C-alpha cells in the first residue's frame, strides 16, 4: 500500500475544504437571517 498516506491526505484535505466552505455558508446565512429579523423588528417598532 505505497503512498496510502498521500492518497488519504489528498481526500481528507479536499473534503475538509468543501466541508469548511459549506459550514461558512451556513454560518453566514444564519447571521444574516438574525440580522433580517432584527432589522424587521426595529422597523416595525419605529412605525
Amino acid at each position: 500500500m505505497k503512498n496510502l498516506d498521500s492518497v488519504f491526505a489528498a481526500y481528507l484535505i479536499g473534503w475538509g475544504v468543501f466541508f469548511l466552505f459549506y459550514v461558512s455558508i451556513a454560518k453566514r446565512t444564519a447571521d444574516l437571517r438574525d440580522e433580517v429579523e432584527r432589522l424587521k423588528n426595529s422597523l416595525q417598532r419605529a412605525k
Partner: protein
Amino acid sequence: MGKRIILGAVAILLVIAAAYAAFYVAPEERTMGLIQRIFYFHVGSAWAGLLAFFVCFIGNLMYVWKREPKYDWLGVGGAEVGLVFTTVVLITGPIWAHPVWGIWWTWDARLTSTFVLWLLYVSYLLLRTLVEEPGRRALLSALFGIFAFIDVPLVFGAIRWWRTQHPSPVIMGGPGSGLDPTMRKVLFFSGLAMCVLMAFLIAERYMLEKMRSEVDILRREAEAQ
C-alpha cells in the same frame, strides 16, 4: 429550500459513490499504483471549478447587459465556489505530484495558469469588499470577472498547446491519448458528482447573496427613518 435539500442529498450520495468507484471500481494504474486514485478527485474538482467560473462569467455578462441583481448573485456564487474547487485542485495536485515527480510544484504552463486563475478570482472577491455602493460593486466586479475568465481557456489549453511537466490530456487529447474504459467511466462519474456538488454550493451561495441584498435594503430603510 426543498429543492436545495434534495440537490444537497443527491450531491452527497453521488460524491460518496464516486469515492467508492475511485477506490474499488477503477483498476490500479500500472506505473503509479495507488497514488493515481487521486486523479478522479483532482480532475473532477478541476472540471467543476472551471464550470463554476463559467457560471460566474455568464452571471457577469448578464449583469452588464441587464443590470439585474440576481446576475450579480450568480456571479459571486460562481466565483466563490469555483475558487473553492480550484483550491482543492491546487492542494491535491502537489500531494499527487510529490511521490510521482519528486517535486511538489513546478512553474509549467498548466500549473502557473491555474495558480493565476486562483489569484484572479481571489482578486474578484477582494474587489467586492472594497466597493460600498451595491450597483457600482456589482458592475465593477462583473467587468473584472469577464476579464478574469480569459484565463480559463488558457488553463484548458495549456497541456494541449505547450509541453508541460503536467501530464497530457487523457480526454479530448487527440491521437495517442486515452484512458482505460473503466477508468474513463469512473472519471466521468466523479466529474458528474463534483459538478452536482458545485451546483448545490452555488445555489446555497446564491441564496446567501440574495439575503445579503435584503439586509442592505432593510438597513437603508432603517437609516432613512
